């Protein structure tokens, strides 16, 4: 990436961080305050992203929604990654038979498409924010677990590990010195790459009416309500959608640069 590219990326991530942590700095208003009289205002100086059907300021809602959407993405990725790490470590170090049992199991889960699995999980839990997190987390776990397992296997069979063995280092030392740190960068990359996708999946669930319910300013939910007025108030759909794209793309770029650096 070029120098300016990096600056732009850093600036962008900074804005997202502020939006997530201190939304009021960027948008002082309340994301929930309704003003029926101002409904369906097109973008203007006062409302840069326009207003929605209840006269709420979309800019304010998009900014305040960052935390909601990111939290869901983070929590889901964290959950998926947590499960994946446990499974990945077990399969990487377990005896062959256990490895192949878990591997088969993972393949089973992998064979079921992500959203399908999320929907099945929601069939159990019912809709809502937490179920959406669980659903996205669980359904992304098998993919991560496979990646982590391969990664760990490669590390364990690497010449780096052999060299440490020859130097007489115990298994724990090898794990501490080489395995964990080298896996962390990979995990970090996976997590940043995963958050973007998790945000998309979670918003897809909200969009289908199975995730975060309105009036919370979650982006997927905003999109779902905006789409009703697509022909009349395009701004209600365009801006939350752009926010999702921006965050998902930003996270992916970040993840890629992490991968590049560690490679």
């Amino acid at each position, binding site marked *: 990436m070029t120098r300016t590219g990096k600056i732009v990326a850093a600036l962008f991530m900074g804005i997202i961080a502020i939006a997530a942590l201190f939304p009021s700095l960027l948008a002082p208003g309340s994301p*929930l*305050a*309704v003003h*029926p*009289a101002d*409904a*369906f205002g097109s973008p203007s100086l006062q409302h840069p992203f326009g207003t929605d*059907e*209840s*006269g709420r300021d979309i800019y304010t809602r998009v900014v305040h929604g960052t935390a909601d959407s990111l939290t869901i993405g983070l929590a889901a990725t964290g959950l998926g990654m947590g499960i994946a790490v446990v499974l990945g470590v077990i399969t990487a170090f377990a005896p062959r038979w256990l490895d192949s049992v878990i591997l088969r199991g993972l393949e089973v889960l992998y064979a079921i498409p992500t959203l399908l699995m999320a929907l099945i999980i929601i069939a159990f839990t*019912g*809709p809502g924010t937490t179920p959406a997190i669980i659903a996205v987390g669980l359904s992304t776990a098998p993919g991560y677990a496979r990646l982590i397992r391969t990664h760990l296997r490669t590390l364990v069979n690497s010449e780096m590990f052999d060299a440490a063995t020859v130097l007489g280092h115990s298994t724990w030392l090898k794990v501490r010195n080489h395995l964990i740190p080298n896996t962390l960068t990979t995990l970090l990359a996976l997590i940043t790459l995963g958050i973007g996708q998790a945000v998309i999946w979670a918003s897809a669930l909200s969009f289908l*009416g199975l995730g975060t*319910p*309105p*009036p919370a300013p979650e982006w997927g939910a905003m999109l779902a*309500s905006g*789409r*009703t*007025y*697509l*022909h*009349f*108030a395009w701004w209600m759909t365009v801006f939350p959608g752009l926010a999702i794209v921006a965050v998902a793309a930003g996270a992916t770029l970040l993840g890629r640069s992490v991968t590049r650096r560690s490679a």
Partner: protein
Amino acid sequence: GCGDSGSTQGEASGEPQSGGTLIYASGDAEPDCLDPHYGGNYPQGLISTQYLETLFTKNEDGETVPWLAESSEVSQDGLTHTITLTDGITFHDGTPLTSEAIKANVEHLQDPDTASSTGYLAVQKVQEVEIVDDLTADLHLSAPDNALEESLSMHWTAIQSPAALAREVQENCESPVGTGPFTVDSWDREQQINLVRNEDYVLPVEDSERENDLAYLDGITWRLIPEAATRYAALQSGEVHVIDNAQPDTIQSADNANIGHLDSPRPGASNRIELNSSQAPFNDPLVREAFIRAVDVDGGIQALFFDTAPCSHSLLSSVEPLGYSDDSLFYRDVDEANDLLDEAGWTERDEDNVRMKDGERLELIMPVSTNQSVPAEQSLFEQFQAQAGEVGFDMQINLLDLSSWYAALGEHNYNLVSAPYTKVGPSVLRILYHSSSIEPAPSGYFANNAQVDIPELDEILVQAEETTDDAERADLYEQAQQMVLEDFYVLPLYDQQNHFLYTADVQGMGEASAIAAPEYYNVWLNQ
């Protein structure tokens, strides 16, 4: 103030042409069953209007008139209705329409296996159907029911071939057999229901303008396009001819786009929020009134519905002649709302600024059925949520699918609910506000969601239904409505919206059945 409804009725231009298949795009959930006896919701009514016919119907003046019936007579005591059928009508399966069919249909509705809810309530008082001759039947009632003919004008009680009704429930659901101008040809699940013209159709009444009795259209493709925006896009690009559940914003812009609009408000109850008076906090009329004072109904409706839905201050639809409206009861006044809540003892506040009383928070739960509530309405509820919050209510909206929504109501786990109810005539008031309606019907549904339980009201409602004097009937219903409105059991919103948009080549739109479902018998395509 509320705006007026703007409705551009289609005007036929030129001579009607035969031919062409009309493509209809419905935003409703796909019916489980095409036989409207089963369950009995509005989407079933909408589609079955095309292939089933009722004994009675409503004319342009809102009067109930015979349709498949040629005439009817009520005994002096009001306990026997004698119905005579029009001669020469056959079902799609070729069997003739006889009085046997009336008996079979009423029994079908009353059979618990049919799982009827709407139709079941409509014929609740019919004890026995006695066949007098081929075309005449006597309906013996347990109590007088001056709404029976209105009830029998609804498609949930439409007459189907007895032979067809004898089949398996599932089979009847897929291919109901009636007498209407179209027949059900096939059903591609989740995609469309194909209706074709009934080539043997006999119009039960005289119509001098028609050369023959057949519909102009070759058929109707009843497509399912749940997404409002997609549906409208399809209409705009001419891929479909008619859409239902038109969104307010699209109705408003339809005029410029050379698109016709049919506003056909449903009869029966208005769309309203019912306040569950059986449990705290709405067992206190002060709190009910406070809620009504807190929310801005007019402003919200105006913004969200673009003047396509006039505000209602009545329990009944504006198409019901006996509806009673009281504008003085419904207005927003936040100060008054606060005073009322103070007076009711909800004086403390917690850290979220929610009012408290004796350690209880002022919480309101509102289950909303995503299947029955259009997005604009959900937005309206969201606004109420924010506005009620300002005076110290903690109002939670739970978006639920239909079955969970029924379950929530069944468990009495709600303080507010909006449950549409369509029925022809003011007798809907007994279904909605008589204390016996707190008991669930066999299908599990109970209609008195406000849980109004006033013996005096019960008496008035029963009397109103049994009287044979029209003036008395009107007076009794007005009293009943006043009682419910003045005690703030209900927050009326607007008529049950029923908007249709259609492309310029659709001619002859405008006729509707008693339940306000558009009819396509006289519709033709200008190709």
